[in-house]
């Protein structure tokens, strides 16, 4: 065992007298005002998944609408639906999904700590998240907004109708929840690691969460000031982004994308962390190139700040800046490629079990490889001129967001589900779910690549008849995807109420979170675990000196 746990009773029997965190308080108030990071993680999980449902339903409406070139919704209704789909999916689902739900639950356990550094701040972050999401829900209920999730001026500041200010204020508030969560995690990782746990003995999930938190703290304030200025511009008209009064809309785009590009790394980096965990645990092998993966996480979060201009290649930005941003965008491709190669190399000579989390790793690698590689077309400025704002871009970011972050989130959810709920789910159904996600997703978005290169612009309510064939295929795929998500929801719900009791350590993980009871007690550990070895030293690894390691 890699750690000795100093506990008062020698044997940490599962049926231990102290009750677990789920039972340690009854009633809604004990949940809504808990300081326990595990409960806050669960509450985030429930609210994040419900917003995913809202976003998903909006997506289905879009796909059905695009079955026919004319469609049957009124144009402004369609515009509001794709705007709310974008805003709901990004601000209230993808940004908090992995760090706030899985991160909140698992991070203190992996560090051997009792809780995050500032529990009250953690609860405040959750309340701020709900308060911000309330504004977004208000905006949806009062007819939504039709500015696109990017809020480009001058349309959003002087021409758009609908409760734009409410949505902007929602984004403003949600930003602070993200900042405070990031701040909390950075301090926890710096100051509350288990004794003996050096930075290179931490699981890679924590490196990814650390890199994500850096982006959360350093990028989110800029969207706060951008949204703040836009609210003032729209209500008072100070002319800062209004061309009629001398303002410059391209300056808004610089402000907006300075946050919105690092935020896509903020969304995908936690997914990398989950995949690093899953690949190592389910192949029973030490991760390949620990330092390379750890440093590439931090490198991605650093370089992520230098390349926002590739969203603005055709926006009237100067050619020199376009070339500069294009060159730097290639620089971010290297660390991402290193990660993918290292994950595949980790499987070499491993003992790979086809558990559901591992199936999600295969789905992730397949989809993220396509997502990453199609990014190369968009980074090359000459090709991007043709592809910008077409369905090629829509397909690219769905491959990275749904194919990357969402599959990793589902993989992580299935990996730690036994530890979080104490219940086991049906592995066959899980694998079927993963396969359906794989199938449905590819059908939906591979068709959109073809639409994109042939010149079908995005955010179009009616399109030319020649594109209809691929739209029909894409809609069929989206139905398969919807079925997959409802199947997953189904068997996970079933496992909570009637699932078998989860074994103490179902996958044989050796990082600290598997030292706790299942589900963990309120204070996580009875004593203070000491870490003496790396997070992936599995018993199956042949403990032979590397020199004698035969091929």
């Amino acid at each position: 065992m890699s750690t000795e746990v100093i506990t008062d009773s020698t044997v940490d029997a599962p049926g231990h007298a102290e009750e677990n965190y789920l039972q340690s308080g009854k009633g809604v108030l004990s949940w809504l005002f808990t300081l326990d990071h595990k409960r806050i993680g669960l509450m985030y999980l429930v609210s994040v998944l419900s917003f995913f449902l809202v976003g998903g339903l909006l997506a289905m409406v879009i796909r059905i609408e695009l079955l026919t070139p004319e469609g049957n919704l009124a144009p402004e209704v369609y515009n509001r639906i794709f705007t709310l789909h974008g805003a709901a999916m990004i601000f209230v689902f993808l940004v908090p999904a992995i760090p706030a739900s899985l991160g909140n639950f698992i991070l203190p356990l992996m560090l051997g700590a009792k809780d995050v550094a500032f529990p009250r701040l953690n609860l405040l972050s959750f309340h701020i998240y709900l308060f911000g999401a309330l504004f977004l829900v208000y905006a949806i209920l009062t007819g939504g907004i039709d500015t696109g999730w990017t809020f480009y001026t001058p349309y959003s500041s002087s021409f758009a109708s609908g409760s734009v200010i409410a949505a902007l204020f929602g984004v403003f508030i949600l930003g602070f929840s993200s900042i405070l969560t990031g701040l909390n995690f950075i301090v926890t990782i710096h100051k509350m690691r288990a004794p003996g746990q050096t930075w290179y003995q931490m699981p890679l999930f924590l490196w990814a969460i650390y890199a994500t938190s850096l982006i959360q703290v350093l990028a989110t304030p800029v969207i706060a000031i951008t949204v703040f200025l836009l609210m003032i511009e729209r209500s008072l008209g100070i002319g800062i982004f209004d061309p009629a009064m001398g303002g410059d809309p391209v300056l808004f785009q610089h402000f907006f994308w300075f946050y919105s590009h690092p935020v896509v790394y903020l969304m995908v980096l936690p997914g990398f962390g989950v995949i690093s965990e899953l690949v190592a645990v389910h192949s029973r092998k030490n991760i390949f190139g620990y330092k390379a993966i750890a440093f590439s996480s931090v490198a991605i979060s650093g370089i992520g700040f230098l390349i926002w201009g590739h969203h603005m290649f055709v926006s009237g930005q100067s050619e020199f800046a376009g070339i500069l941003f294009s060159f730097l965008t290639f620089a971010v491709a290297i660390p991402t490629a290193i990660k993918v190669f290292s994950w595949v190399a980790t499987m070499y000579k491993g003992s790979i079990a086809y558990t559901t989390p591992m199936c999600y790793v295969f789905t992730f690698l397949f989809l993220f490889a396509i997502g990453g590689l199609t990014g190369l077309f968009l980074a090359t400025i000459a090709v991007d001129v043709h592809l910008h704002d077409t369905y090629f871009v829509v397909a690219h970011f769905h491959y990275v967001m749904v194919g990357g972050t969402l599959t990793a989130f589902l993989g992580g959810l299935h990996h730690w589900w036994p530890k979080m709920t104490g219940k086991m789910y049906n592995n066959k159904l899980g694998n079927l779910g993963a396969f359906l996600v794989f199938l449905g997703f590819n059908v939906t978005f591979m068709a959109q690549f073809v639409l994109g290169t042939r010149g079908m612009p995005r955010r179009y309510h009616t399109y030319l008849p020649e594109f209809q064939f691929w739209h029909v295929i894409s809609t069929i795929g989206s139905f398969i995807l919807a079925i997959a998500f409802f199947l997953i929801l189904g068997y996970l719900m079933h496992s909570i109420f009637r699932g078998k009791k989860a074994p103490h350590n179902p996958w044989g993980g050796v990082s600290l979170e598997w030292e706790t009871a299942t589900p963990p007690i309120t204070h996580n550990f009875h004593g203070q675990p000491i870490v003496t070895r790396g997070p992936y030293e599995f018993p199956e690894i042949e403990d032979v000196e590397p020199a004698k390691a035969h091929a």
Partner: protein
Amino acid sequence: MNSLSVQTILHQAVQGQGPAEGRFWMPPAASTFASNIDNLFYFIYWLAVIFFVLIIGTMAYFAIKYRRKDPNQRTSPIHGNHALELAWSAIPGVLLIAVFVWGFRAYMDMSVAPKDAMDIRVKAQMWNWSFDYPSAGVNTTELVVPAGRPVKLTMSSKDVLHSFFVPDFRVKKDVLPNRYTTIWFEAIAPGEHQIFCTEYCGQNHSKMLSKVIVKSQEDFDKWIEGQGKLDESIPLSEHGKRIFTERGCTACHTMTGQAGAGPSLKGKYGSQENLADGSQVLVDDNYIRESIMDPTAKVVAGFQPVMPTFKGQLRDDEVDALIEYIKEHGGQ
């Protein structure tokens, strides 16, 4: 509204792309630098396919070869190999730099317009395009260009951001309200190509379409003269009908009696119309002419003053044609 019949869909898929020989991914290459960009696209495409097959192939092979046969199957203690890690950072790095250099040069060709390019002014406004030929004083809603001559478009918008995109020429540039942005292209052969607006600009963003009509040099010169005045052989009201649809009047006014954003014009000519300020006006030639040039002067009751002015975009003979067309559908 063509229905969802399987035959039409299959036909479109098989028939693939428009008239010229478009490759599977790309629409037909109709401008001089389009083929270079297609080659660059396909170079990255095959690079991506090779890397994809490599990665996913190895993954699948490992997943099958090293699947867990018995619970405590031994695994190798390898946890890093500096040579391999260096290799798979350097090789992609070199390939990426090669792609960047090619992309950089292609972009330079696209950005710097040749000196002798013909200058055309493009004006984008909420949901239609209009093209000014400064040398010939002509204003049209479809871009007519000569084949084999570089054309430079200087674009600006009247309200929000728009974006001028012609897939067949591989050109796209946002149209900003506070600044002129320019693009250039040289069409290879006569033909017709679709123009899209690709920057979200509100309600009818997806209807803001237009066409680039490439003519041979002689046809183009003939067309330019013809633009000076309407072709007499066609009756005036026929021109009126064409202009009525071309200029996007149909977006708000109908000829069916059913009001849209603007009043329906069916049976209106010669009738009395009550205005927003309660007064009445006779719908005659002068009222129609004034409403086209200065739309907010006399707004009909129950409607918003949202009609844009067409002053400077419609010549007098075109306005006469519109009046004739409305008269034809009048109440006499």
